[in-house]
């Protein structure tokens, strides 16, 4: 008797818990964080019968933010907008299971009556759902998955177009019939990145995730040997701001995918079970009602550096108990996370940069040459051997001969001994002498006393005469 009472109390508690008022963060929109510091949190509130509540006293709701999921700091709510999604509409992407098992009847048996297959029932439910949408701001898209994810149309206003696309969902053949749930949800979220506003994927599934590679041992056409984890689908949908609503369709005895449940829970969606066509039709409407009744809360975000920021929405229920929901949004800056603390190395780096700049400014690039020399300024390729020639002799011959002091090769216009630089010991002066005209400072001459910086052109080779420090010796 005692054990029966305990069991009764336990069941009572379970029922009470199962149908207590609840608050759920369905989406966090941080896309305008950089522009206006605002975070928009969409919450759905359900009553003790599990039905959505459209309006609630603002005073019963508190919002707090945390960088570590432990220490939450209450934030000031900027605005509180019930039924936030009605005006701007909802973008639905209906993701239908098109695996082999969807062509069985509800009891999992093969059937010759196509109308009794799960896929036909699902298509009829989808048509009813689409026809029930009267808000022109709502948009619907359609995609299917089996071994491969296929999108027929991303959300559009033209509902008939989507209904027509249902005919394109054909029975899979051969190895097409596996069930890639996680990868498909990942790809669907990726496709959703092109669309703004409130985004929801409604995925219909009649079983578990059965990846192509795991079951066939063959690399997948699109991902090779990669097998998607449900956590990847969660992360992707959170980043893209998509809520995943799951409909488990089929026989109550069918196995349900636990990862899919987790995806829905973590992305702000809900899991529904539907065991016949009528239930399926009502589930689609429930999901839409639930999203429509969402409340949008706007608040100014804090500036603590974090890769993720956790948002907690807490509500005082009618029995004064507290119910809450926590989710995170991505808050990393483009430069990434800062160092934990300042380090002297950073100051040192600044000082080193400044010091090196100062040292650069000290370099004067002075001419250190003290000897008289000839320096080749420009020469056609392959005509000279070295760039400089020290003037150590009293006579320095420039010419095409190999015996010349400065040989200019492969230049037909250059004579064997084209010009000579003569040093007069008495006057300590260098002069150029030649039988032919030689360009010195762009002017043809046969003789010229050279000054430092004079430019001699011999057969296209430009030579500069540099006196060095000779003047000091005079």
């Amino acid at each position, binding site marked *: 008797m005692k054990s029966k009472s305990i069991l009764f109390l336990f069941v009572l508690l379970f029922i009470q818990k199962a149908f207590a008022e609840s608050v759920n963060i369905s989406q966090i929109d941080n896309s305008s964080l*950089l522009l206006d*510091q605002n975070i928009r949190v969409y919450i759905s509130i359900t009553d003790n019968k599990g039905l959505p509540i459209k309006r609630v006293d603002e005073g019963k709701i508190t919002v707090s933010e945390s960088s570590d999921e432990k220490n939450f700091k209450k934030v000031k709510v900027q605005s509180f907008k019930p039924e936030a999604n009605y005006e701007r509409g909802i973008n639905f992407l209906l993701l239908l299971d098109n695996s082999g098992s969807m062509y069985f009847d509800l009891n999992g048996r093969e059937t010759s009556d196509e109308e009794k297959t799960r896929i036909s029932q699902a298509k009829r439910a989808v048509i009813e759902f689409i026809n029930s949408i009267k808000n022109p701001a709502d948009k619907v898209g359609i995609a299917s998955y089996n071994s491969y994810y296929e999108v027929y149309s991303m959300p559009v206003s033209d509902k008939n177009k989507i209904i027509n696309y249902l005919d394109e969902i054909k029975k899979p053949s051969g190895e097409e019939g596996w069930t890639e749930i996680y990868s498909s949800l990942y790809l669907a979220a990726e496709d959703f990145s092109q669309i703004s506003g409130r985004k929801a994927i409604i995925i219909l599934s009649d079983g578990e995730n059965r990846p192509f590679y795991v079951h066939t041992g063959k690399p997948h056409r699109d991902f090779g040997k990669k097998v998607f984890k449900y956590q990847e689908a969660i992360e992707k949908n959170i980043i893209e*701001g998509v809520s995943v609503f799951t409909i488990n369709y089929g026989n109550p005895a069918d196995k349900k995918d636990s990862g899919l449940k987790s995806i829905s829970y973590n992305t702000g969606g809900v899991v529904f079970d539907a065991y016949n066509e009528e239930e399926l039709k009502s589930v689609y409407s429930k999901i839409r009602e639930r999203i429509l009744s969402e409340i949008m809360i706007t608040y100014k975000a804090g500036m603590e550096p974090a890769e993720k920021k956790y948002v907690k929405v807490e509500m005082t229920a009618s029995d004064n108990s507290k119910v809450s929901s926590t989710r995170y949004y991505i808050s990393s800056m483009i*430069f990434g996370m800062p160092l934990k603390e300042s380090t002297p190395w950073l100051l040192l780096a*600044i000082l080193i940069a400044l010091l090196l700049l100062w040292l650069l400014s000290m370099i*004067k690039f002075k001419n250190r040459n003290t000897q008289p020399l000839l320096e080749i300024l420009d020469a056609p390729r392959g005509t000279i051997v070295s760039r400089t020639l020290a003037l150590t002799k009293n006579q320095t011959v420039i010419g095409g001969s190999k015996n010349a002091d400065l040989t200019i090769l492969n230049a037909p216009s250059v004579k064997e001994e084209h010009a000579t630089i003569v040093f007069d010991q008495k006057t300590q002066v260098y002069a150029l002498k030649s039988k032919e005209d030689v360009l010195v400072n762009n002017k043809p001459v046969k003789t010229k006393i050279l000054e*430092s910086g004079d430019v001699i052109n011999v057969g296209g080779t430009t030579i500069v005469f540099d006196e060095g420090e000779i003047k000091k010796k005079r």
Partner: protein
Amino acid sequence: MSTLMKRVFLCIIGLLAGLASWATVELIIIQQAKFPSYLLFSITLGVIVGIFMSGFFGTSEGIFLADGSKIIKGIITGIIVGTIGGTAGFLIGQAILFAAGNNLAHSVSDINKIALPLTRTIGWSILGIFIGITEGIRSFSFRKIKVGFLGGMLGGITGGLAVEYLPRILDNLLVARLVGFLSFGFFIGIFYGIIEKTFSLGILKLLNGKYKGKEFLINQKRIKIGSSSWSDIKLSDYEDIDPIHAEIFVKRKNVNIRNKSKESIIKVNDDITEQKELKFEDVIQIGSAKFIFKYS
């Protein structure tokens, strides 16, 4: 210093500017929590980078000319222009992000992967433009401003992409940020140098004296040569040079020289000249200094 050496120097200055900017940005982002908004935080980072980059690049011309007063003026101009550039760079990038808004980015990942790096790269290129035009503003040269605009923009785009995308490629964020900033400075230096040389109408190369070998690009409409700090080519260790002795000027894309001194002469190819259009390998003598004119 040859024009090649000048380009190497510009790259070194760019790397040093990148090092200083990186370290300062690291010190600022540690203080992120103290900022009132992400917008102000980001603008502050832009201003800091602008000040360091423009300040460092502002010294470049003074360093090439070995002119201390030009270095100081360059730093001051650089800090002012960099502050404006950093703010403008980020705000314009931000404005584009506003304008593009929902048309470009529909989700956080869109914003983080495409819109934000793209618009911020535009911001970096605008910052690059301001860094590039610093010298043009200091020397009141429209031609130099044009060169700086193009060089700074190309460097800013390339460097900006490095700053934005390297942290996504490299695992060590600190290293990625350092490499990103070094790349930003380096690319501005390299592109400024390339554009400056490409757009110049010729080179004057010193042939004698203490600064023999130093090359001066003809990249502005008027270049004053003399011993004064006001001259663009300052000849401080040469004899018989007046404060403003000669002027190189560009007329219908031809380079000319004229004597600006009443007391002293100038020579072109050993002939006393008042004004002359320069031809390839003409030798100019101003006081004891000799230059050769070459096409760049």
